[in-house]
């Protein structure tokens, strides 16, 4: 039995969630735990500097517990975070490349710019903050501005302008930055 995550009880998951929350409010960047076979790395910034070759630990929102290297395929444990109510976008957990996805909070037509002919809200390489509008989703002539929900650098735009997107579909990938402080330039 290689995958220790399969054996985690609800209680243990809850304890991890508590650790995550504690860490989030602390000044530490990450926490590494080793109990028997289970290695746990929780971080809110860059990956730990030395030693353990962890899967890239993500960014900030929401803090996640990433599996250690010997269980690469294990699912990311995401602590229970309050579900943002639509149309706030949800940033999904990190994948192997360390980016997080911004997914569609509602089904509708995706618009990359505020009006035809205008510059797009974001381009690849742009910095976004949680509240930065990244797209409009139109449902029956009602345009819903979608905030990024995560701070970081846009690495990929996954949807064609004016395409219909499904609920939960990935719209953007973002490489998260450490914190969402005010000195990050605001993207227009």
């Amino acid at each position, binding site marked *: 039995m290689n995958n220790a995550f399969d054996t985690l009880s609800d209680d243990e998951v809850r304890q991890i969630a508590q650790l995550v929350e504690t860490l989030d409010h602390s000044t530490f960047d990450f926490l590494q735990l080793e109990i028997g076979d289970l290695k746990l790395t929780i971080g809110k910034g860059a990956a730990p500097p030395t030693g353990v070759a962890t899967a890239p630990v993500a960014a900030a929102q929401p803090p996640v517990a990433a599996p250690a290297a010997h269980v690469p395929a294990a699912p990311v444990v995401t602590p229970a975070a309050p579900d943002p109510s639509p149309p706030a976008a949800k940033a999904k957990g990190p994948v192997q490349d360390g980016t997080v996805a911004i997914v569609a909070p509602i089904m509708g037509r995706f618009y990359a710019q505020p009006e035809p002919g205008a510059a797009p809200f974001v381009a690849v390489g742009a910095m976004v903050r949680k509240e930065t509008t990244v797209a409009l989703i*139109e449902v029956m002539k009602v345009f819903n501005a979608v905030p990024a929900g995560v701070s970081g650098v846009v690495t990929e735009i996954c949807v064609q302008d004016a395409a219909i997107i499904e609920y939960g579909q990935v719209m953007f990938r973002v490489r998260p930055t450490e914190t969402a402080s005010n000195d990050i330039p605001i993207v227009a």
Partner: protein
Amino acid sequence: MTVSRVLIANRGEIAVRVIRACQALGIETVLAVSEADRDSLPARLADRTICIGPASATASYLNVNTIVAAASGTGSDAVHPGYGFLAESPELADACAAEGITFVGPQAEQIRQMGNKLQARTLARQCGVPILPGSEKVHSFEEAGAVAAQIGLPVMLKAAAGGGGRGMKIVTEAKDMRQMFTSASAEARAAFGNDTLYLERYIANARHVEVQLLGDRFGNVVHLGERDCSLQRRHQKLVEEAPAPAMTESRREEIRQAAVTLARNIGYENAGTVEFIFDQDTGKFYFLEMNTRIQVEHPVSEAITGVDLVQEQLRIARGEALRFSQSDVIFRGHAIECRITAEVPDEGFRPSPGRIMVWSPPEGPNIRLDTHCYAGYTVPIFYDSMVAKLIIYGRDRAEAVERMRRALAQFSVSGIGTNLSFLRFVMSHPDFAAGKVNTRLVEELITQMRAVPSAIASA
């Protein structure tokens, strides 16, 4: 008016049913799914799916704007609403029309007319269709008490915006009126956002008889016979059959004609059902309401007429005239439908969702199973508890009942609880076999079954 790609705004067995009908007519299908239904059986059968929202129906299947946007976004030229959810939403019919999308159902105005039960009552009276002695809108319990004194107790309080048994209360004694009025209006307000109530005489020894109709836009209306749906639990139908048993041929013809008259009068288009209450003590029948959609129990009418009602819905929606006249509709044999739900009868019909481990339905001639379930499927907690409809055909009622008994005995399900044990008990009960049914029989049988626990175990 083309119908070449249909968005199906529903889930479960009716989504499967509509997809199959579209396939038979060479129509492409797009299934709107909630996040919980992405991997459902209908999702696999449809040509494509579009995820319209989270599991919660209010944010997905009940969202008019999202449904219409999904239809236009996927290039669908029609929307089939199934039953439940938005099937009787005039707003959906209107929104489709505004987008140039065909709504597979009646005109919005016809849904509105029949959706308001008081207005429907008035329409029925104007057409000469008998209605129960009752009232217009009653504003207070005092007024309700005065009306009740006139028409005689017992009476039933009903919600004008009603349906599904909510906002319905039986008042047998005048002193109960105040309390019943208060709770009925509260229920109506909670369920429909409208607490308008009216009164009708309550028929104790009643059967629920309804007539299946099809109408086209050229004014043709035909009926496909009647169904008896008297076996209900909390106003939810459990067993339906066609034709209605124990009814004189002249009375049967009168009921069918009354339904046709009402539909013809409003130029009704597409499939619909007119429901009546049949007083077994007097032999009289009264208009209850009209359902402006395909109904759960439509297969029993299909079984005895050979007409595919959902295919006819699609043909009518694309502007075709009915392909047959009344005299072409031939009734043959008897059909019974049992609704199989994920509910545990001996625990007060507690819902029992979960993962189906064993799903082994009966097979053979004269057996039809409409379902979206299979071994390994997880019945989600978010929606209706119905998991299948078992429809059995026989040359006559006795043969259909006997075949239904055997089919239910062969039906084996584990992983989730089902009401199969109760359905077996109903089918083996002498009152049902004798056709002695009324709208209170199910409650009596539940009591009987509890009294004899071995009845469940041996069933």
